[in-house]
């Protein structure tokens, strides 16, 4: 165990918690999906986000032991566990993003720290700093084509790929966990901007917000 001071960021205290999009919902509204909606947006708030940094080999060993999934070693790799609820994404040659169901991240961090004892690594809990937005629907790809500079053609962006790229005037992590679904990991401070951009760009597709 390293001598890094860590603590559970989720409090037992009854403090009202708001998702990063709460303000955007109030200010810009959230049009409900209709039968004519060709794109649907859904936020997955309060998930556990961890950034793992270190050597691929040591991290891979620890991650396989703790999560039962091997670390995506190839650039732009994205893997999910058997239930499809926990994901690991390559961000850089020594950096990975782990997203787990909300509430699991502190236990996971502790187990990883135990498994990695003595190794050279860093784990940061960034759950409060970013949120996950899902896009679904037949026009989801078209909507992304209007928003990101990255080529999202299925031939270039297969399932199981994830990249960090430019979205409008900000940056997002764009992932494709399945054929029909796209995920955007956005910074909390840019969540409102991203949301409003998506609503505006998705207007022609009758974008709906599932809540």
């Amino acid at each position: 165990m390293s001598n890094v001071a860590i603590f559970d960021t989720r409090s037992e205290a009854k403090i009202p918690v708001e998702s990063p999009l709460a303000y955007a919902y109030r200010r810009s509204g959230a049009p409900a999906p209709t039968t004519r909606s060709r794109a649907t947006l859904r936020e997955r708030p309060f998930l556990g986000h961890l950034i793992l940094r270190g050597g691929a080999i040591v991290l891979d060993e620890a991650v396989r032991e703790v999560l039962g999934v091997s670390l995506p070693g190839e650039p732009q790799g994205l893997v999910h566990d058997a239930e499809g609820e926990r994901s690991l994404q390559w961000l850089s040659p020594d950096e990975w993003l782990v997203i787990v169901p909300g509430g699991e991240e502190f236990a996971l961090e502790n187990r990883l720290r135990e498994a990695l004892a003595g190794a050279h690594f860093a784990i940061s809990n960034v759950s409060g700093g970013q949120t996950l937005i899902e896009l679904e629907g037949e026009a989801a790809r078209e909507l992304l084509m209007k928003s990101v500079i990255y080529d999202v053609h299925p031939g270039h962006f297969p399932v199981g790929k994830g990249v960090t790229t430019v979205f409008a005037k900000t940056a997002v992590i764009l992932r494709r966990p399945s054929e029909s679904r796209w995920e955007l990991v956005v910074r909390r401070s840019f969540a409102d901007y991203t949301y409003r951009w998506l609503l505006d760009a998705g207007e022609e597709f009758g974008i709906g917000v599932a809540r």
Partner: protein
Amino acid sequence: MFHIYCPYCGELREEEEFHPRGQAHLARPADPEACTDEEWGDYLFFRDNPRGIHHELWVHSVGCRKFFNITRHTVSYEILETYKMGELPSFTAEHSRGNSTEAASRQAQVAQQAGVHV
């Protein structure tokens, strides 16, 4: 659109994701205290401005956020190669058409000095 190959991401990415950070391969004097003012000033402020092949440091700032090197032709703006930090260019002013064998042997030498087996 203009694409640049990121050696860490292993694919061509939009130029918008990158940022140039000036001349590459600047060696910081081992002992700054022992430098003359001229040597230190050269290191801090003076950069090459060649007509032809130039080695530059770039960063994939929206992406993997890694620094890497680009060999660029300052007349045609052509990017001749991109290579990772710690590697040596195969295109140099002396070998404008690329001399990978020499670069490879120099690279092996550098790696050997650093105690890395190639």
